[in-house]
């Protein structure tokens, strides 16, 4: 069984304000990589292949992913600002070529927060999807995947037939730490670079970001000294009780 893990390089979400943020693997995708590796370590998959879209600057994140233990990694060379639908369309062509049994990826990228690519990809491929998954189990001789999903109403369990697209949620696992020697070993693993042309796909993003801004900072309020004072303020000042 082959698992393809699409992942994205994003600015470090935990970087302090006012510092040039380092780039890291999108935390949700890291969870997907970790899960794919565990499935392979259990003997249920033979290959974990990574794919990402971006310029050469993101190679460091690809090496991190390889250092975690992926078999192979691809970079689709495209430096444009793409939107989720463009990403999904490019990935669709790649997936059809690689023909994995499972596409496992993070549910959303922490910079864009769209939460769309996995579902769009599934729609384009015509494959079943399991989103926001917190537990994965391969059943019936690896022909179905049983997943617990984190939904607004609580945990929901579904099964999907393989091939399928699965997107991961936070509580699925905790990714392994990669140390410097691991990264150095990963330098020996090749990153295959493909252009959209070579893939045979040509897409234009349909979303254009005109501008970005910081939302107004919510003004801090007052400190109260006691429960009595708080009750007074809530009743009389805020008029919310």
């Amino acid at each position, binding site marked *: 069984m082959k698992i393809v893990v699409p992942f994205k390089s994003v600015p470090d979400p935990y970087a302090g304000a006012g510092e040039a943020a380092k780039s890291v693997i999108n935390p949700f995708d890291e969870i997907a990589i970790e899960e794919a590796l565990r499935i392979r370590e259990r003997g249920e998959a033979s290959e974990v292949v990574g794919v990402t879209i971006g310029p050469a600057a993101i190679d460091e994140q690809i090496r991190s992913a390889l250092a975690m233990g992926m078999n192979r990694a691809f970079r689709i060379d495209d430096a444009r600002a793409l939107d989720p639908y463009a990403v999904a369309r490019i990935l669709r062509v790649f997936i059809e070529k690689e023909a994995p049994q499972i596409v496992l990826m993070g549910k959303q990228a922490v910079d864009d*927060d769209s939460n*769309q690519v996995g*579902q769009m990809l599934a729609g384009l491929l015509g494959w079943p999807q399991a989103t926001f998954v917190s537990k994965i189990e391969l059943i019936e001789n690896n022909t179905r995947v049983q997943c617990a999903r984190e939904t607004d109403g*609580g945990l929901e369990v579904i099964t*999907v037939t393989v091939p399928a697209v699965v997107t991961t949620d936070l509580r699925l696992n905790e990714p392994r730490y990669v140390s410097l020697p691991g990264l150095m070993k990963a330098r020996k693993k090749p990153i295959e670079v493909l252009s959209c042309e070579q893939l045979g796909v040509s897409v234009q993003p349909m*979303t*254009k*970001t005109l501008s970005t801004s910081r939302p107004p900072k919510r003004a801090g309020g*007052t*400190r109260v000294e006691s429960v009595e004072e708080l009750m007074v303020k809530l009743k009389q000042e805020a008029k919310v009780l």
Partner: protein
Amino acid sequence: MAETLVLIELDRQQVKRPSLHAITLARQLGGAYALLILGHGLDEVAASLISYGASAVIVADDSALAEPLADRYAAVIAEAIRQQGAKTLLGSSSTFSKDILPRVAALLDAPMLTDVLALEKSDGATTYRRPTNAGSMLATVQLEGDRRVLTARATAFEAPAADAAPCAIQQLKFDAGGLPNGMQFISREERVSDRPDLTEARVVVSGGRPLKDSEHFERLVGGLADALGGAVGATRAAVDAGMAPNDYQVGQTGKVVAPELYIAIGISGAIQHLAGIKDSRIIVAINKDPDAPIFEMATYGLVGDLHQIVPQLIESIRKG
């Protein structure tokens, strides 16, 4: 024929009220809009939706749609769009809409925007505002193409008035037998609660890790919520520690809420949590660390031991 189709979310044949807020976005967009519901045994709920000023309430009612399986729902919704000739599909942000609508977008060859906060029309062009980077940035975005899919953040739009003249109910014709079969529903955690829904409640009381365990959590956070008739929320840390179930989680990767009153107990205010509460009208923070970041965002802050303060607060509220 409507230009816009609004997907209304149901939960056991009841309307999920936040999903109605997408109607307000439809009204802002202008033009005719129809409401769409999917499921099984929907006569009553369809009748409850006829006064929202829609051109029609479209009903896809079949046993094959008893559970919201994305492959089936997306196929049916795409079919409804085609039959209506609609250009825009709207929903309200929820795990339901996030699961299904992107798939529909792909079937319609359309781009999609999640968590739309506002729209602006100028010179015939429409731009949308949405949050990125855990809400620390706002992006103004334009879409291209014939069709588009949008989810609206319910807290950014008002609840629509239901005072229009009643509209017709249409049964959607579709090939139920030809629906995809690759997904199978197994089970859902059914938790029955007297408390209001977290995303709909007027008051939300949330707890963090310092609550120690689920017993304390329920007694203090749950107790205060019940005294105020509110809903219960939790931070990621509290859910991870097993103090609260995952659907209580409020934050960037949990639920976004904007109640009248949000009380944060033992919550330090990590940015990922703040992303889920910043539009609340009044925020009260109770924490023993005077330097906790949440105090920068709280309307009222009380520094002290929550194990002493919360019982006092509950007592005070009960006495009225």
